[in-house]
């Protein structure tokens, strides 16, 4: 299982441009830090740190944590700020990319990642703010549930996190990009086939392999 998550994290890392400001959700996104060149990305954590670094063994501080409350390091040029300022950065459009986990993503691009039907709704954290505010949202998730049910579905059955659609979904099998309100399968990860991806993906998508993002005008 870990290996699949690592595959996703490594693929997601390749989407991050040098110099960008990236917020990582808990779970799979946290693994991404291992796959980016040192100091190339500025990781933002919503509890008040820009410049999250790898934890050095001799630099442990219980009061320096990420959004998952795990101890982290800090890079040169890091800065600390309060929670209101931190979410100002998020809502205000100052975060280049948010990489988040999800329970479901649907045909409209809507993301459900904060609550499950018929369970207590007692936690949301920063998920809604990040989806609303980040310039680009990348969803990293396993392609299916433990019971092999699709998580990429026609319409979310779990409560949605925002009306803002995701831009990219990366699973252990495939990469989907949302361009002009349509999902495109742009990459099939090694060892997977279009047939099985089709079988286990319940939202409609077009195929656009060998896609290359052009800065000026996507598609």
């Amino acid at each position, binding site marked *: 299982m870990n290996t699949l998550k690592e595959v996703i994290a490594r693929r997601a890392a390749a989407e991050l441009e040098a110099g960008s400001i990236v917020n990582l959700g808990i779970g799979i996104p946290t693994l991404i830090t291992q796959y980016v060149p040192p100091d190339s990305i500025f990781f933002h*954590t*919503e*509890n*008040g*740190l820009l410049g999250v670094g790898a934890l050095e063994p001799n630099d*442990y*501080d*219980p*009061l*320096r*944590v990420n959004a998952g*409350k795990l101890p982290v390091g*800090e890079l040169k040029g890091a800065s*600390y*700020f*309060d*929670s*209101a300022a*931190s*979410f*100002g950065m*998020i*809502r205000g459009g100052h975060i280049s990319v948010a990489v988040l986990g999800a329970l479901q993503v649907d045909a409209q691009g809507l993301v459900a990642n904060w*609550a499950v039907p018929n369970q*207590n*709704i*007692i*936690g*949301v*954290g*920063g*998920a*809604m*703010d990040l989806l*609303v*505010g980040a310039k680009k949202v990348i969803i990293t998730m396993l392609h299916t549930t433990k019971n092999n049910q699709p998580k990429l579905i026609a319409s979310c059955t779990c*409560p*949605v*996190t*925002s*009306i803002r659609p995701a831009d990219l979904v990366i699973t252990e099998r495939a990469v989907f990009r949302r361009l002009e309100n349509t999902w495109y399968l742009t990459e099939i990860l090694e060892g997977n086939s279009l047939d099985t991806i089709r079988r286990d993906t319940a939202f409609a998508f077009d195929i656009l392999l060998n896609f290359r993002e052009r800065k000026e005008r996507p598609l």
Partner: protein
Amino acid sequence: MNKIIEPSSAVDKIFSGQTLMVGGFGLVGAPLTLIEELAKRDVNQLTILSNNLGEPGQGLGLLLRQRQVKKAVGSYFTSNWEVGEAYNQGFLEIELMPQGTFAESIRAGGAGIGGFYTKTGVGTELGERKEVRVIHGEKYLFEPSWRADVALIKAYQADQMGNLTYHKTARNFNPVMATAADYVIAEVDEIVACGQLPPENIVTPHLFVDAIVQSRRMLTREGVVDR
């Protein structure tokens, strides 16, 4: 004008039924000494504004376990499983907010802003029954500001006047909560002479702080211990 007092005197200011803001992201940056002092008192029916309710039996989790909390307002109570249990058993009311909206509503309360509009939560279950307004062509939700009777915050250094600085991510909600309550108690690790903190590095100016308490408990790799 001496603001430095004992933890036991500080919590004398807190009464049953009041609304409290308590700083911290989990136990990181939480005023652990003040919380434990409050746990010794017969004070209950509290409404607590805090991002979380600590961990099971620790930090605000101690007040929850002792049934001192009537209602919790915050963004992420999932990390203390006893919250869900208390909620299911009907001992605890919960008002859940997106974390940014939570922080902003406190900042607004402290800054004399009656309410504000955020895009966060539009079209979600947390946005139901909230006013939607289109501004600059986009949908926003109205959120009212929050204030409290008392704020318990944690800082790193205080000077004798009550100017405060914070340590790394232990800053989190503390500076905004310091602005938004009628009585603000700052638990700090070090008290220094006035003039020791460079004027440009002070995060919370002294006008926000009513009382200063020396911390006796701290968070370490091994959990909460005596200093």
